[in-house]
């Protein structure tokens, strides 16, 4: 999450850092005020109790929370999958306790890879996420936020990888005994190699 490898994760990470430094600053401010309150209480008495309440309880949150909300909404809006000709569609199916991946645009029905999702680098990919039993959650920390896999419902998560490589993913919603082992790998291939790599990975899996 702190080492983003794609645009969606980049936004999440920038929000995280903004909140981290904001929280660190406010924590330091409170500690300084606390120190002053114990050592030089007269300094604080320059403001009435009422002003402290209004400043700390109304003005400060009004300055901090609305901008954070708007920023969060903008990031969420950018992560929302909008129709585009360039997008590749893949499917992720969660089941106790493993992930399977299907490629409706590239491979025949029923051809699935287990625990490895193959995608091309440098191209947006819509992962259509669903579950065959209980609620799971699809999470590749370096690529995007979490998205739940819910029985009877398809959720879509837009991911994009800038560099070819291997990115680890986990199930992020407790789903039973083997939940902790329900991990997977996203393998991003260079754009030109993708079709071949996927064909190789699917070899022998087609029923």
């Amino acid at each position, binding site marked *: 999450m702190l080492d983003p490898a794609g645009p969606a994760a980049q936004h999440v990470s920038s929000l995280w850092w903004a909140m981290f430094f904001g929280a660190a600053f406010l924590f330091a401010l409170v500690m300084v005020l606390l120190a002053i309150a114990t050592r030089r209480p007269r300094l604080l008495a320059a403001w009435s109790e009422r002003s402290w309440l209004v400043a700390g309880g109304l003005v400060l949150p009004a300055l901090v929370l609305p901008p954070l909300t708007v920023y969060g909404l903008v990031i969420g809006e950018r992560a929302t999958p*909008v129709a585009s000709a360039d997008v590749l569609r893949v499917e992720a199916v969660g089941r106790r306790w493993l992930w399977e991946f299907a490629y409706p645009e590239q491979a025949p029905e029923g051809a699935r890879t287990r625990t490895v999702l193959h995608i091309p680098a440098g191209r947006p990919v819509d992962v259509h996420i669903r579950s065959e039993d209980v609620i799971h959650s699809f999470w590749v920390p370096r690529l995007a936020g979490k998205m739940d896999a819910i029985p009877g419902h398809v959720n879509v998560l837009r991911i994009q990888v800038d560099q070819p490589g291997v990115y680890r993913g986990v199930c992020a919603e407790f789903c039973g005994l083997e939940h902790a082992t329900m991990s997977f790998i996203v393998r991003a291939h260079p754009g030109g190699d993708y079709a071949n790599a996927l064909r190789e990975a699917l070899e022998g899996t087609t029923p």
Partner: protein
Amino acid sequence: MTPHRATLDLALFCAGFLIWSSAFLALYGVQGLGCSAGWADVRFGSVTLLRPLLIAIWVAHLAALLALAFWTRRRMRDGANFLRRAAYAMSCVAGLATIWTGAPILGLTMCN
């Protein structure tokens, strides 16, 4: 003050945030229902059915809150006491909260 009128003031005190919660619930529910029922795909020219519907729900609640604010202000002017001042303040705050929590329906992507 008669007991009956205090009861009314108490009801008015609660009314603002009851309307707020009604707006929240209605927007939340109709948005999800509309998306799954495909109302966002029903088009009239460039407008889809769902967004105007949500905006209508929102505006109706805001109108109710505005009326409530005028009503509670008048009662406060007729004879101010703590409950009446608080009822007026609560309807104003509930109005602001409804504007804030509902405003995203104006711009954000509806479904997906």
